């Protein structure tokens, strides 16, 4: 889905119970700031972050390592509170540990004494009938390719498998806002492509707003409606803000080899400070900088 038109958003929210966590929510950040107190003094990480995400939209967040991407997701999930600005989900302020969101953390954070199935079950909203919950867990494990490992403990599986279980746990919550912190980082290249398609399938079958942190520019361009580049606005500044927002052309599923994406990729990598070498026979790309 391309950036949801406001009419579509309105229909979506009126047809579903607004109190239901499963309704896709728009996310708004207004001047969000976060400064950490450290022994060396205050450390500003985020300052003046403005961002508006439509209900059902997929927005990828890219930025250099340590620039505050995880910190930003934590503010939206209500795991941490900004010390400036406001964050609204569906027009209402984020609550602590907001139940309308689900996070797949950068580390899998599975409970080591539970099987993968029981870990995924933690994500199923409380009050779900037991049989239904079991069925959902089985379906999600199957979806992320872990059906055969349901009874294993986290330490018996690879890092990539644990990360997929963590993704399944987040999906089990049927959140209005799905927050994914480098969810495919620990996966091998092939599994990563499969999981990207899986995420798109899940999103197409039951739209939810997705905020996806990634360090993989190609992944961002393949999955997202828009890509947000985080970074400091002025050279040498300690704090991070939104440097640019790129709207990705084309409907999903996209062709990974699309020439327009290659251009955007070069632009984003440039923004990340990675020099790109354009082929000599492509003068257009050369001039696009």
């Amino acid at each position, binding site marked *: 889905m391309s950036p949801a038109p406001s009419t579509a958003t309105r229909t979506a929210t009126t047809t579903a119970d607004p109190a239901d966590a499963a309704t896709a929510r728009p996310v708004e950040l207004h001047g969000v700031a976060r400064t950490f107190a450290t022994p060396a003094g205050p450390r500003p990480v985020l300052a003046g972050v403005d961002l508006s995400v439509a209900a059902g939209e997929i927005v990828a967040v890219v930025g250099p390592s340590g620039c505050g991407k995880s910190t930003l997701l934590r503010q939206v*999930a209500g795991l941490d509170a900004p010390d400036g600005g406001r964050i609204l989900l569906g027009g209402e302020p984020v609550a602590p540990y907001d139940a309308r969101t689900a996070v797949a953390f950068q580390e899998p954070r599975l409970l080591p*004494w539970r099987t993968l199935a029981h870990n995924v079950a*933690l994500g199923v909203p409380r009050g779900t009938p037991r049989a239904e919950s079991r069925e959902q867990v089985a379906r999600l494990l199957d979806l992320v390719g872990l059906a055969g490992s349901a009874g294993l403990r986290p330490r018996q599986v690879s890092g990539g498998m644990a990360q997929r279980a963590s993704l399944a746990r987040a999906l089990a919550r049927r959140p209005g806002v799905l927050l994914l912190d480098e969810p495919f980082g620990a996966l091998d290249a092939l599994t990563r492509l499969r999981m990207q398609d899986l995420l798109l399938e899940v999103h197409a079958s039951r739209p939810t707003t997705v905020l996806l942190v990634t360090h993989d520019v190609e992944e961002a361009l393949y999955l997202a409606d828009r890509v947000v580049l985080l970074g400091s606005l002025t050279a040498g500044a300690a704090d991070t803000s939104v440097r640019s927002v790129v709207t990705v052309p084309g409907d999903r599923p996209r062709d990974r080899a699309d020439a327009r994406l290659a251009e955007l990729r070069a632009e984003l990598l440039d923004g990340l400070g990675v020099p790109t070498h354009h082929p000599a026979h492509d003068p257009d790309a050369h001039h696009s900088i």
Partner: protein
Amino acid sequence: MTDAPAPVVTVAGSSVRATDARGRALPGLNPFSLGLAARPGAGPLARRPVRLALGLVVPAVLLVAWQLVTASGLVAPYQLPSPASVWTAAVDLAQRGLLGQYVAISTQRVVLGFLIGAALGLAVGSVVGLSRLAGALLEPTLGAIRAVPSLAWVPLLILWMKIGEESKLTLIAIGAFFPVYTTVVAALRHVDAHLVEAGRAYGLRGARLLGAVQLPAAVPSVVAGLRLALAQSWLFLVAAELIASSMGLGFLLMDSGNNGRVDRMILAIVLLALLGKTTDALIGLAEKSLLRRWA
């Protein structure tokens, strides 16, 4: 002398686990000689019966040495009676119905005192470990009480509760309380903050969070604390029975010492060793199954 401080508890706990899980098997001197089957933890020492048999070697050697020393007349019988006469003393006490009674009453005191102390340790430790307010309020006082040597309680407890069962159970419960309390507090404070946050993010709070994340994460160290508490219970039992009682193994020790019955003293010590080892082995089994489930 008796109350082990918390850091020791933790270290002891982790080393126990490491050896249990790996079976503490040393590969042969030349691991390559074991061929393809060679794995860490393989070899004859990895097998239970072999290890059990090896554990009996030293006691058997001691027994033989004891027999030889007493038979050769190197030591006077009133200082060290022969194994046979200790056995005779045991049979004699058993026929009078005293042996069974002493063993039963001592075991009962240890089990009850341990259960009371461990339950309190778990409860108070959970509160102190989870609530900063409770920690600030209770920790200094409990730390000071823990510093009191066990024997110092005896006269006071007798004065308050007379020489009945209560005074002994209380003393043993005090002995069992602190290892559990300190390990629970330390374990709950060191639960991986990432896991707790994940639990909260998925809607767990209060008792649910405690049951689903915090307590399970603390299980391995708590079990180690329980094991230590049981050992302390036997220690405190003897302290209680030595000073104020009319039955039990501690009483047998004291009474026999007064009457010069070295055979019965040795019998009491051997029985304490056997009972202590047995209860420790039982709790070790429980530990193993708990760790399989929770670690």
